[in-house]
């Protein structure tokens, strides 16, 4: 923003905000490629330059990548339906359902994920013995389900009332209208913010390492505590996370482009 000339019109710049590159925007594509190529080159250079430290650190991680993927995938699969039902509940005209959904969102949003993680791990542990990875997936799903509930709610309420009226006037009931007309359209509005949540989720799985789940971070820390190469290890951990999230964000933007099939332009 330039305000030094009083005669110049005041321009308020609004940035995209979202971290997902828009495939139709060439600048953003090149930003993504730059980051992606940079990540690979940087990793390759470090491993070539100092294989004893960086390559060994990198070699300690693959097992963790698998666990991170597992936790992320399970949490995504679980949090999507939770989010959908929470969103629908928040829009429900039934007072009780609405109240339950809203309370869930308010409570979960107000508690840090790390605290929820401990809470569910030790809380469930009191009742029956659960593997840490199970508690981790539950905690992540419950937490992100609440966030996604808000995303679903705004996406669904963005569909015009006329669409619902047209479907109802043809004879579709409420459920059919939702499944055939509203959700397929809402999904387009929902996908970019949900994609952001996916990426945030993947990064937040690093928190589960604290429950002795062997994810990327955990594996790296184990390696570092033996070799004392903390800086090298965390560098590799950061690069691996970056590599994975960049791929994920690319997938989301490709899906977005695909969903735009019925657009005018």
């Amino acid at each position, binding site marked *: 923003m330039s305000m030094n000339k009083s005669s110049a019109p005041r321009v308020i710049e609004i940035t995209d905000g979202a971290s997902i590159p828009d495939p139709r925007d060439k600048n953003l594509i090149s930003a993504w490629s730059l980051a992606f190529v940079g990540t690979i080159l940087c990793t390759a250079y470090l491993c070539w330059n100092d294989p004893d430290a960086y390559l060994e650190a990198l070699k300690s991680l693959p097992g963790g990548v698998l666990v991170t993927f597992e936790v992320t995938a399970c949490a995504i699969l679980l949090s999507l339906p939770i989010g959908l039902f929470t969103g629908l509940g928040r829009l429900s005209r039934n007072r009780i359902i609405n109240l339950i959904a809203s309370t869930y969102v308010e409570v979960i949003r107000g508690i840090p994920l790390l605290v929820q993680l401990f809470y569910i791990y030790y809380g469930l542990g009191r009742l029956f013995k659960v593997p840490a990875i199970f508690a981790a997936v539950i905690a992540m799903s419950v937490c992100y389900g609440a966030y996604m509930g808000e995303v679903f709610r705004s996406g669904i309420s963005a569909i015009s009332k006329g669409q619902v009226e047209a479907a*109802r006037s043809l004879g*579709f009931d409420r459920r059919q209208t939702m499944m055939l*007309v509203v959700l397929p359209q809402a999904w387009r509005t929902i996908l970019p913010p949900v994609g952001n949540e996916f990426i945030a989720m993947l990064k937040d799985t690093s928190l589960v390492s604290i429950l002795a789940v062997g994810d990327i971070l955990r594996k790296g820390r184990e390696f570092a505590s033996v070799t004392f190469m903390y800086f090298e290890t965390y560098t590799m951990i950061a690069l691996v996370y970056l590599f994975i999230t960049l791929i994920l964000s690319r997938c989301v933007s490709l899906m977005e482009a695909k969903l735009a099939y*019925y657009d005018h332009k």
Partner: protein
Amino acid sequence: MTTNNDIDTSTPETEGVDACMDCANPIIRIRDVFKFYGSLLALDNVNMDVLPGERVVIIGPSGSGKSTLLRSINKLEIIDRGTIIVDGYDLYDQKVNINTLRQELGMVFQSFNLFPHKTVLQNLTMAPVNLKKMPVKEAESMALELLAKVGIAEKAHVYPSKLSGGQQQRVAIARALAMNPKIMLFDEPTSALDPEMIGEVLDVMKNLALEGMTMVCVTHEMGFAREVSDRIVFMDNGKILEVGKPEHFFTAPEHPRLQRFLKQIL
């Protein structure tokens, strides 16, 4: 809500008339209907019948309740008092399945409301396939016939966003017809169209009228009302103020409010 020049000061308290017909079984029977929006009386003791095969046009200034009345016929608006009976079924009877009844009532909206995520053909086949369990092949050939009838068969496989307003509205009419309804309701179908596209939509509606379809139409197209309708209903402030055959309606309007309304728009 009301435009300023519509405010009636000369005759503040006018009695509404009813638009009932002397017929034992009208296809739509509207009796003593009241509808409130907060403290605003949108429908004020409305009585109206529509006979099978009849074409009724409802006119009136904006905010007069004509769209509300039309939308209450397929229960898109919930009335506060009165009864509405369509094809022998009371809309507010607990035993009546409104979704089944709505299949008999085709509705065309001012803003088209085509489903943007479906092709034109899918817009037409969606309801018959899902609700009437019609085989997809059969539904598609029927849909293509309907599209040919409204003159856009060549656009069957494009998405609605590629169509002009007039084309979209014709698709919307075909979509409603795909359920083979007994009654068609039109809610200002040409009001959102560019002037040069109004004709093509009205032509489709005229053809429909010639085929004997029962139609209730809210419109500002006086030429269409005059040419096609069997009866015209004039509404203002939620009341029906005058009912008549088109020939007498335009040449010898009785109610002073109608006289002024016609003077303004003709």
